[in-house]
């Protein structure tokens, strides 16, 4: 029996130090396969680096903005004709009333920085400053009416063309055809920068502010749409976690295995593959047209994203439950635990890391989803107003981060193109945080058996 492995005659027929043809072929195949794998990884890594360089290179500029610091004389003759400092009188002065004050102050600043400037009229300086500056000054005056009559220093957003010129986006040769700005304005901007009147610094309003109209690229920010995404994620989390986990537990642990549960299983897999825009049109017809919920509300967006996310949560949750060894169930049943006790005391804790990972990846996908939101009216330009309170946030028309990025990307002004890339950076930071949380949670709950 055991002597079958000894070659006939008891001699070794081949030398160990010489490779035979078969071994050489096998080693060559192995080396080839490793090379393929390495190539694939290198290509993937190359594209990742390219993507990262492109995103950061294009988007990081959006976080820096040009500001012009000017001393504005708050002329009582223009702002408070009666002199009574009555807040209602002050509110009657529209933003147009503030334009001459700011433009005069700006002209002074330009002439101080560049004595030979061809800009002679105060009205010609308006191309340097953001249209949002008027409202900013007016808001300040309404909040501090006692400052009327004084000269107050304001740090105002520069116009997006000026900002673009300093970032290299707007070229001197191009402004000839641009009716929004002239070469003398660019000269003035250079002089203001040299004089320290114009400064460039981090712009928190890009992260925290609201979207602005198409002509005010310098004012637009992600804050409000970020809030919209936050409310949607709350809705998705609150609905898809309990529904998804309950459905998976029922299907995996309690449901009888018959044609009906097979049908449900097949359909869950199919739903996970349904294009998200289909969920958008479903949400439009069911929640808005039939259910009467308001358009553009984060609540509706959250409901739609819940529908989209549920199958993507149920599938990994079921896989996690299935991966719990049956011996654990036997052990619990064997000491007289009921099926529910078995599931909640033993199976679910062991499946928790897998379920949580699936949940967070599902939430991450929902956070990055754009198409269904466009159909229910959560388009980017809606995100201009903050909600009035925490609960109002669910119903106040809003957008979401990816829809905001899409909105910016399709606007004509190239200044918005930069902001779209900047928005992508913010979105990616959120996704990285969520993936990191998934890893941390998995580590924390992981137990060996």
């Amino acid at each position: 029996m055991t002597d079958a492995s000894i070659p006939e005659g008891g001699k070794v027929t081949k030398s160990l130090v010489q490779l035979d043809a078969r071994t050489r072929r096998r080693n060559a195949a192995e080396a080839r396969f490793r090379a393929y794998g390495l190539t694939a990884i290198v290509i993937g890594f190359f594209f990742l680096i390219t993507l990262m360089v492109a995103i950061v290179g294009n988007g990081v500029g959006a976080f820096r903005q040009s500001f012009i610091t000017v001393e504005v004389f708050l002329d009582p003759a223009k702002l408070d004709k009666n002199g009574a400092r009555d807040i209602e009188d002050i509110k009657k002065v529209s933003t147009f009333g503030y334009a001459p004050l700011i433009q005069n102050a700006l002209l002074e600043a330009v002439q101080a920085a560049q004595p030979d400037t061809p800009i002679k009229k105060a009205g010609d300086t308006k191309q340097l400053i953001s249209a949002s500056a008027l409202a900013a000054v007016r808001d300040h005056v309404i909040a501090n009416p006692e400052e009327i009559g004084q000269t107050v220093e304001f740090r105002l957003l520069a116009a997006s063309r000026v900002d673009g010129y300093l970032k290299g986006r707007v070229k001197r040769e191009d402004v000839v055809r641009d009716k929004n700005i002239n070469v003398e304005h660019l000269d003035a901007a250079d002089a203001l920068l040299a004089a320290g009147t114009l400064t460039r610094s981090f712009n928190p309003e890009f992260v925290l502010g609201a979207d602005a109209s198409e002509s005010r690229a310098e004012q637009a920010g992600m804050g409000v749409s970020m809030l919209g995404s936050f409310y949607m994620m709350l809705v998705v989390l609150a609905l898809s976690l309990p529904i998804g986990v309950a459905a998976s537990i029922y299907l995996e642990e309690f449901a009888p295995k018959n044609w009906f549960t097979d049908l449900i299983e097949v359909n869950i897999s199919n739903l996970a593959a349904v294009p998200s825009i289909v969920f958008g049109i479903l949400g439009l017809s069911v929640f808005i047209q039939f259910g009467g919920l308001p358009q553009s509300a984060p609540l509706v967006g959250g409901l739609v994203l819940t529908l989209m996310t549920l199958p993507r949560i149920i599938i990994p949750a079921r896989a996690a439950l299935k991966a719990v060894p049956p011996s654990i169930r036997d052990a619990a049943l064997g000491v007289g635990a009921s099926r529910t006790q078995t599931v909640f005391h033993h199976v679910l804790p062991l499946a928790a890391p897998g379920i949580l990972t699936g949940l967070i990846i599902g939430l991450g996908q929902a956070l990055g989803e754009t198409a269904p939101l466009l159909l229910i009216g959560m388009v980017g330009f809606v995100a201009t107003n903050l909600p009035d309170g925490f609960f109002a946030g669910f119903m106040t028309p809003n957008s979401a981060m990816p829809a905001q990025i899409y909105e910016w990307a399709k606007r004509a002004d190239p200044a918005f193109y930069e902001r779209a890339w900047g928005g992508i950076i913010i979105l990616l930071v959120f996704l990285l945080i969520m993936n990191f949380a998934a890893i941390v949670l998995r580590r924390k709950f992981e137990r060996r058996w």
Partner: protein
Amino acid sequence: MYDAPYTERTTAVTDVKISARDVQVYYGDNHAIKDVNVDIQDKTVTAFIGPSGCGKSTFLRCLNRMNDTIDICRVLGKIELDGEDIYDKRVDPVQLRAKVGMVFQKPNPFPKSIYDNIAYGPRIHGLAKNKAELDEIVEKSLRRGAIWDEVKDRLSEPGTGLSGGQQQRLCIARAVATEPEVLLMDEPCSALDPIATAQVEELIDELRANFSVVIVTHSMQQAARVSQKTAFFHLGNLVEYGETGKIFTNPEDPRTESYITGRIG
């Protein structure tokens, strides 16, 4: 040839604990257990032997209705525990399993502490009124499982960190913690080395004082060493059931003789 040390044992005349009549088990269309009639006695170790796939484990799992968890499994016939039909519609399998404990082939401690492994059963059955009582149950069970001295200083460590033999004794301690009346063991030593096997066998002999033990085993030597009664299963039939001494020395059925002498199986 079978020549393991064997001593004649007498079985004290005791009550019938479990009585099975005309039990049939089907897995889908497969008739796994055919017409099994057996009376298992109290305070006795009963061994089920037979070749792989003969249905001995299946029959064992019928005794505490663990087969209920398999959708395609059907059990017909009558199995009575102390005169009560365990397949009666009014019987809750959870209550049954508290009375009929089980130890599995592979040691399967919960991924929790040693203490919690033992305390889980008493907790869900409400056997302890307070922490002190629970501590007492845990200690008593671990002592019965012959593992107390090895783990008393590390009760809060995970049960999965023990060696295979210790894990199996922990599982036995866990099974006895709920004060069952019958203890079912499905090849409890198949994953253990000879030393751990000897410890578990010694333990089984001690458990006989308080429980009715039913053990499925592949090892005929083990059946001869630990049991007083032996049942030989073959192809789903209960071929022969009787005193262990008689089965191993003077079997009535030629199939039993073939099996214990190593000609079939």
